[in-house]
């Protein structure tokens, strides 16, 4: 079991201002983000990995909590070589398709600072 540590989300402090006092732009922003909840996001992060999962929670630092997350990696040179060999051996025509490496992680939190690109499905 991992020890309790401060998550990016809990590190923030409220400044006492209630939601209702926010300006109309902020209300719109909340609505926009709210509409994205439970949609499937693709997060590309700085080390090249991609995380695909359902959006559950976010904050003003763009920290993202995803559920049912799969982690994707770019295939390595060895992966490409192997796929090409099998493609040739199998006598297939056309381009070689190399799958990204994928594994299931579950519930993850991606700190906003590492997010390079964000896509939504649908």
């Amino acid at each position: 079991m991992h020890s309790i540590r401060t998550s990016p989300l809990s590190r923030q402090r409220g400044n006492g201002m209630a939601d209702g006092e926010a300006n109309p732009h902020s209300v719109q922003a909340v609505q926009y983000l709210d509409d994205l909840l439970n949609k499937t996001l693709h997060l590309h992060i700085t080390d090249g990995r991609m995380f695909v999962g359902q959006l559950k929670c976010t904050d003003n630092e763009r920290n993202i909590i995803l559920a049912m997350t799969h982690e994707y990696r770019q295939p390595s040179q060895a992966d490409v070589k192997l796929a090409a060999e099998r493609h040739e051996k199998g006598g297939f025509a056309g381009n070689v398709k190399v799958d990204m490496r994928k594994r299931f992680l579950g519930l993850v939190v991606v700190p906003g600072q590492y997010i390079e690109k964000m896509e939504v499905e649908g």
Partner: protein
Amino acid sequence: MPEDDLADEASHLTIDGDNPNGDDIGFAAKRLAHEARKTLSSGGGSRGIRDVTQEFAAAAKLLQPGQLVKDEYFTLFEAVGALEIMDPKMDSGYVPPGDTLEPDFDVCKGLPAEQVLWIMDELLRLTAVWHDGYPLSQTIFTSLHVDRLLSPDNRPPYHLFYGDTALLVMTTEQRLVHIVLRAYCIALVKSCALVLHTIQSQNFYEEEDFVTHLFGRELLPSTGANDAVKLIDEAVKFLDGADVDKVMRTALLERLQFARTYISLLVSDSADWNTLAAMGRSAETHKLAQPILEAFSDKVQRQLATSTPPRPMIIISWDEALERWKAICADIVEADRLTCFDVCQSPHALHRAIWAFAYREPQPNTFARAYLQTILFASEQITEGMAFFDLMLTDMRDLVLAGDVLVDPHSFLVEIPSDPRHKCSRIVETFMDKAFDEYMNLYRMVCQNRCRIRRTFTQSVAIFDSLETEAMRTDAELDGITPGIVLAGEDGPGNVTLTPLTSWVKYYKLQTMAWTIQLGFETDIYLPHELSMMYWYLMVFARRERKLLEHIERFLAARQKTFVSSRDARQDDEAAASQEWLAVLHKQADFTALLSSALWQVSELLMTLCILQPAKRDYAQEQLLYDVRMKSYLGIAHDPIPTLEEYKSATQSDRSIEDTCNNINGTIADAKSCLAYMKKTTPEQGKYIGTGEQWKREIKQLETTCVAVAVQTSQLRRVADKHGKLLGAPRDQSLKGAVEVSIPPAGSRYHDWWVVPQIREKKT
């Protein structure tokens, strides 16, 4: 829209009713529907992808610091379990700067025999650790050779090399890896699959006992155990003719033979695990192995499907690993012995055998306990000719109805509908159906870990109690067809009947109640100041059991008088055996009542003298604490347990310390004479066939416990005398500060079910 239909269907996933769990289930269903609706509601239904990086960032910036936008059902409590990406402690896929994703080791390269030997021994070590319950990601999967064989990129027949890069001309060192090591790895992996199958087919507790997670990998599905054995045989053939040092060859052959024997044992039903244990002894050649640490790495976790943080590889010594293997083999061999045909003929002997297995030192691991469960429950019968039904019927016969036509197996074969035996048999069968699950649990649950045995039995108590209602109804129905013997009441006026089924259920209910307390002592759930109360209740339960046994014995004696002398001796033999056994059970209940009485008096004295006290709790209320502690027993409808008030009024705080000590000594003397009786009992009389050693050992432990109680009592008496408090009433005395008491933890007691406080005079 199809998506809406699905969401609507999900929202209908409610379970009606006002039961306590109904709210949770209703809530979960609402949440599921909500999430489904949101996920599925895609405008137009196309599965396109939109870049929202800038929009999202802009929107997020407008939130207040600390403000969250979250799904209404998502709790921050859940959020704590989220793995933080890019944090090395939590992110198993994080690659530190300067490091490579994959370990830099070529699994296809040839290795000298010494290193191959080391890898094989390392895998043996890790398999032993896995048996202990550690996940594959920290054990066998850390082998890079195994990782390559199991890689999702690999294809049958699972070579270490991929695709067409087959090494057609291999050196000896390459062959050692691709033929010998590969065969060995495949055999071990298939063995894991077989072990997992055994464990998952039976009762066990995930994470508590064992981790079955495969981390998204499959265990070589296209290869069977027989294929693995063939590969080993080919490897042996190669080694016999290979250019390898003679000593090394022998060592490698030993390892291959071990893997071959291991998988063969797992596949066959009747095989001798002693042969595997014998191999452990020939592991002297381990010294010749040359470590090659690079062949194992925890970096494999970066590619495994895991919802946990990265975890370290497990380290135990080679000798410890060999001990584990020996213990596994010994446990399996013992499991076979304890469930042999003879033992299975007597339900009680079988019962004792399973308890004996559970109490082996060290405790048998999950696989061994699953193996025992497989022997007993995997087929339709306990053993040849003894179906579960027969076991239960024999139990009833042995305990309450020896020699009675009601549970005579022949009665169940009578087909004439008007025959009372036919009518009664159908009624008895119906009752047995109802009691079946909980009765079989008496055997199955003892195969679980200790804490779970106790917890399951606390739940059984309530089930037996409701079964008792059913039994009473059934007894009345049976009595209407074939009236039973009527005797004068045991206490008070009026007559009584045996009510056999009720007595049978009551016996197991009381026995289970006593076990929950005994196991509570063993698993250390009672605080020192609760010892007094728990021992008092144990005494009460044991006394009730004794009274019940007396009731049954009376009716057995009366029944024996009705036997017609011209009938076959079977009836007499059955009744005589039952009589002897009931006498033993009676003595055992007696002993439990006496020893718990003695310990109750000791603990109580310590409390009254202020030597043993609960911590100061300003908000604790006696009744509430009692309700929480006795929760499992409070719901009992038939013969409810004594209340807190009744317990309190049983205290003897106006008796002098001297008198109490004398009373304790007298009680202990009586307890010892019970033990003397049990010592002289034969395995047939006491129904402990197959567990004679354990019987003797336990009696010795109990004798020592009795002596210990007497010693501590005299200790207390001596100190009280010294302070001149021997003759006064304890209520007015206090030996606080003069005496200190320690409670021995489980594992350092003479018998783990009996807690004897250690009394020491404090040096002033």
